[in-house]
């Protein structure tokens, strides 16, 4: 029988560092998936995941076991991703000319018939990825958690450490910021 998370954590705290390896093996796919929401390059994703597990190991003594280990770890992962976004903030602006041909085609199709533009299309995914990289770190975090992952505001407040009203304010600003970027990108051709 495999040891439970609590048993492994207790062993690590007692000094058996090797017991941390099964925890990494168990949770690394989820941490990788989360990190890939915030970083595109694989080397950056690996750096984030590595930092998450190192922080988790160092802070394991502070884990009180009131919530499942997975929740605690994922909260740490999201906060590490936010720190990464803040450290790698890019100020470059996207113009319409920077869009790839499939993205431009998808936008053309959306202008002609919004219903016909397929949201499953790779071009749409590339475009939203491009927009997200242009958002401020807090806007990107709140759009990802609230709009894309569809988490409740209360949960986002717990994950980020922000208050519920602050999450709502930042969500409002993030949507406005996103609309502004979309308007800027499309202005050259359609407006």
């Amino acid at each position, binding site marked *: 029988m495999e040891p439970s998370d609590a048993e492994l954590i207790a062993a*690590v*705290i007692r*000094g058996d*560092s*090797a017991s*941390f*390896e099964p925890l*990494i*093996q168990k949770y*690394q*796919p*989820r941490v*990788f*998936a989360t990190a*890939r*929401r915030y970083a595109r390059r694989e080397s950056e994703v*690996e750096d984030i*995941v*590595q930092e998450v*597990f*190192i922080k988790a*190991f*160092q*802070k*394991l*003594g*502070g884990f009180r076991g009131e919530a499942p280990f997975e929740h605690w770890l994922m909260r740490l992962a999201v906060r590490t991703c936010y720190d990464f976004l803040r450290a790698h903030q890019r100020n470059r602006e996207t113009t319409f000319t920077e869009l790839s041909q499939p993205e431009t085609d998808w*936008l053309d199709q*959306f*202008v002609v018939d*919004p219903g016909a*533009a397929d*949201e*499953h*299309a790779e071009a*749409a*995914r590339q*475009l*939203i*990825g491009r*927009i*997200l990289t242009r958002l401020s770190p807090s806007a990107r975090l709140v*759009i990802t958690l609230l*709009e*894309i992952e*569809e988490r409740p505001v209360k949960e986002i407040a717990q994950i980020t450490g922000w208050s519920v009203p602050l999450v709502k304010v930042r969500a409002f600003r993030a*949507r406005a910021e*996103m*609309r502004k970027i*979309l*308007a800027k990108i*499309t202005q050259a051709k*359609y*407006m």
Partner: protein
Amino acid sequence: MNPSDLQTKLIEAARKEPLPDHVPYAFEKRIMARLTGMSPLNGWTLWGRPLWRAALSCVAITFLCGIWSLASAPKADNSDSFAQAFERAVFASSDQHLEDIW
């Protein structure tokens, strides 16, 4: 074109994007190698370090204050011995009383 509609459409696209959760080969070994020599910090360790620093700072400040007060203290009057000064202080009130009577 309405940016709000485009925003909704793009967010839908992002929701439907499958998130890859593949892990590079032996990634856990890489992390374990980084963790060699580290130990998880418990609550006492977390508090212990700043408290030790604070304690040392307090001792240093006390020591400096002691030196400063010794250096700046007024020099004692050496004309009277301690015994004479003590006697005068003790009998000060009775001397006053005797003067009043006479």
